């Protein structure tokens, strides 16, 4: 609640934002280096290096929707303007991450599965539905001129989309899919060797911090944008 005040939010995030951008650069550099010194996988060969960009995009893309959903809830129930700005700022990075997960997954699937895309696969389809929710959210916002109405409609859509999150996460357990089951978040620990796990976790951290940097920068921009629009309206009224 401390950061719910726009003034306080701007003050608090002013030094935080460049720090996040700096940390992103370091994590991406280290993650990329680790990704290309890691040994080939005994089954996947060099295609395992696609996993270092695919898994972070997919997992962080899923988390971003949770951020969008929770922000939408606060925007809808408490009508908090910062929550609306937070939901809005999460949509584009979330859509980009999900699209990246689908594209890089397809580039991995062709040599490993022998197919770019499998229509009957529950993980692939639920991930595609997630991308459609992101696109729908942005399209809905853009299609309504009245900002209050756009906020309300988009927030409802954002909340409905939350239903899809457990479906994406557990699709590999609930249905018999071509997509492999979870190999990191398992009850008895990750099934990935340390050589592969180190670059994977570093890249996941890089994608996560990168999202935070883009998200907070965009929320700050949204506050400033609304302030500019208010001041413009005020000076037009005074004139």
């Amino acid at each position, binding site marked *: 609640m401390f950061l719910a*005040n*726009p*003034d306080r939010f*701007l003050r608090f995030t002013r030094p935080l934002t460049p720090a996040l*951008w700096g940390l992103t650069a370091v994590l*991406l550099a280290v993650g990329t*280096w680790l990704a*290309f*010194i890691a040994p*080939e996988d005994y089954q996947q*060969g*060099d*295609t395992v*290096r*696609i996993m270092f*960009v*695919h898994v972070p*995009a997919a997992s962080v893309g899923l988390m971003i929707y949770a951020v969008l959903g929770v922000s939408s809830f606060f925007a809808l129930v408490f*009508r908090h*303007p*910062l929550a*609306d*700005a937070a939901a809005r700022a999460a949509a*584009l*990075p979330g859509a*980009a991450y999900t*699209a*990246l997960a689908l*594209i*890089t997954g397809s*580039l*991995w699937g*062709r*040599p490993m599965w022998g197919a770019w895309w499998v229509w009957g696969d529950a993980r692939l389809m639920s991930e595609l539905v997630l991308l459609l929710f992101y696109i729908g959210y942005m399209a809905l916002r853009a299609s309504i001129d*009245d*900002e*209050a109405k756009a*906020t309300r409609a988009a927030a409802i859509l954002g909340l409905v989309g939350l239903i899809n999150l457990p479906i994406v996460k557990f699709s590999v357990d609930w249905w018999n899919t071509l997509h492999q089951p979870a190999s990191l978040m398992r009850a008895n620990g990750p099934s990935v060797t340390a050589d592969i796990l180190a670059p994977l976790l570093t890249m996941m951290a890089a994608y996560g911090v*990168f999202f935070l*940097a*883009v998200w907070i*920068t*965009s929320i*700050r*921009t*949204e*506050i*400033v*944008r*609304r*302030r*500019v*629009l*208010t*001041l*413009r309206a*005020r*000076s037009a009224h005074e004139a």
Partner: protein
Amino acid sequence: MIDLDMGAYAGFVWPAWAISTIALAALAARALIADRRWNAELKQLDTDTDAARAQTGQGLLAPKTRAQAVRSAVAPRK
């Protein structure tokens, strides 16, 4: 030792990394350009407003009023 020889999988590995790099760079550029643009706009608007108020003798916008403007600016329009 860095291994950049992707062998038979080069046609899949490099496009995946290239697309990811381009997408992240585009997201970063978009966020930073928008931030710079709107902050420049606000600075310009503040300067114009202050100049106009000084000319008309209304005085500068008090800091408290500026803070209120920030708060009112993020409130949803009725």
